[in-house]
């Protein structure tokens, strides 16, 4: 039952991501999604009495719910970017697409997983939906930060998928992945500053000097 609450929350936040029109709103939604991810990992670790999972859930919270949103919000503050995300596809159509993604993920999981009705299967569907929606966010948001958050959402989805179908990756690998995400965010920060300084905006749809 608790798992159902967590997964529903995760799904709702994932859907909330596609109708968010502002950068800060998107960052906050990402934070909320990460918190649900933390809760999921915590629940798994707690019920299985697995210390490694508990350590990992602590890292999820520290990195994805605290550090990364903080860094992203700091970028927004420093470059004084416009709040508007620049939606290429309006929220209603985005929701249609997100629902289609959810349904496709369900079909996919239904075919790939043997026990179709288990909580793991539900988590797997939610995670695939998050991966698809993250990808969709990257493709349909003009602002550079929207793309970054789309990628992080994909990462969240994959993390959940790992937890759902494989019971989490080996401990050491998870740590290395966190390190990788951290480095990614730091480097992205550097590049967003460079982009905003050179272009005076962070709108990737206006970056068109390279073609062909």
């Amino acid at each position, binding site marked *: 039952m608790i798992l159902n609450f967590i997964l529903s929350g995760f799904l709702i936040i994932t859907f909330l991501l596609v109708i968010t029109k502002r950068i800060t709103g998107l960052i906050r939604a990402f934070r909320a999604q990460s918190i649900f991810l933390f809760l999921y990992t915590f629940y798994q670790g707690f019920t299985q009495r697995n210390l490694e999972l508990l350590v990992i859930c602590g890292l999820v919270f520290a990195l994805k719910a605290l550090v990364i949103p903080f860094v992203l919000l700091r970028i927004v503050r420093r470059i004084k970017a416009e709040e508007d995300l620049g939606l290429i596809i309006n929220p209603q159509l985005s929701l249609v697409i997100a629902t289609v993604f959810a349904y496709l993920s369900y079909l996919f999981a239904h075919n790939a997983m043997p026990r179709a009705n288990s909580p793991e299967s539900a988590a797997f569907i939610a995670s695939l939906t998050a991966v698809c929606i993250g990808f969709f966010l990257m493709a349909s948001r003009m602002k550079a930060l929207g793309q970054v958050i789309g990628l992080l959402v994909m990462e969240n989805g994959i993390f959940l998928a790992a937890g759902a179908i494989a019971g989490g990756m080996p401990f050491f690998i998870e740590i290395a992945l966190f390190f*990788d995400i951290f480095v990614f965010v730091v480097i992205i920060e550097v590049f967003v500053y460079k982009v905003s300084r050179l272009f005076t905006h962070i709108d990737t749809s206006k970056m068109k000097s390279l073609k062909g």
Partner: protein
Amino acid sequence: MLIALIILIPVLLLILSPFVKKTRTLGVINASGYAALLVVCVLFLKTFLAKGSQAVSLWGWVYVDSLSVFFLLTTAVVSFAASLYSIGYICTEAEETKISGRKAGAYFQLFNLFCFTMLIVPLLNNLALVWIAIEMTTLISAFLVGFHNIKESIEAAWKYIIICSVGITFALLGIIFFYYTSSRDAQVKSLEWAGMLAGSGMFDPKIVKLALIFILVGYGTKAGLAPMHNWLPDAHSQALSPISGLLSGVLLKISLYAILRFVMLANLSIGYAYSARLFILFGLVSLGIAGAFILIQKDLKRLFAYSSVENIGLVSLGLGFGAFGGIFAGLLHAFNHAVTKAFMFFCAGEAVRAFRSNNMNKMQGMIKIMPFTGTAMFLGLFALVGMPPFSIFIGKLLILIAVFQGKYYLIAGLTFFFIALAFAGLLYHVSRVILGNAPQTMPAQKEPLSAKLALLFLGIFILGFGLKIPQAFLHLLENCQLLILGK
């Protein structure tokens, strides 16, 4: 022991580089380091073959088999040439005050970091760590792509970092699927190579098939397979020329290495036909798209970048016809292309520096302005389009033979057509650059000595491998072929 040296040399160079103030000295130290690395790699190849090509597993972290050695060797050759070429390139850039002394130092640090991440990829035992190392190559080389801090290069770096990260995120999903089936069906709860290889017979075929698609799309983005190649021309054209050579020569192949690892697992569990079909599909699409774009290019470095897409497509096609000797041909072509493309990018770097432009309409008469580079580029062009007696000819021929032996005449026809497109485009564009009328006001230019040396070094491989491939190398390739086919 030798493996430890391979890892240590770039690290040592990295630690050393902040202490050397003079750019030229730093470059020379760097190049000699990579020369040592190359020697170590060749020695390692010798001992490896002498021990009967047994896979070496060290400290639980390192796993080296024939495939690793092959990619290690490719990386070592091209990175030595690039480090040699960098000396003159960076010094000239510094003299022309395009970059400051501090930035020149930063260049060598990033160069070493980049080479380090690429060198450890074939060595790592754990497939997830391979993933992380490949992601690191993206993140580090993004700085080298955006090195000039101008609009175009930052745009290219941004596209590069975002597209490749997305691609590689899909690959991670594929890895998780592999992990899922290996932990559920084969009870192997780790991503270490030996364990997964042993358990691969028990993998769930359905999941392996799905996972392989994610892996191919994911790493394929990084390997430059169309239609995920969009980042490639931008990054290659905006990167510094030695780095363009490294990107095209090594980075793409390193991703191919990661793909091959998973294909090996898949072959053992579901047989060769499935991955072959995927390889052929991606290969043909890459060939077609690259052929079309090569014809309409105006930018010299973008032209070579699309040629890389074309060649990666050919390699992929070769891997798809593995049952007919295509893997041997594909890997041989991968090595030849790495060497030749690095050669061409170095030539292009000199040309771009002389003409201060990438636009081929403004670059004419190379051979009058820079006789050495012009001649080299002319010969390199013949090598690149696949004329005998240069090495690429053999690779292409073997790939086509494999396609014909498979009796896929339609595919063979298409391949011929696309190769002909690329042939015509490259020949037309580049020969105009080399032979056209030089601008009157343009004085003759001199290349730095190190650039000449780097070109000569690569030239030996281009011509040498065209005339006779060393026995040891052939042996290595045959071993790779057996490994991938799972025999």
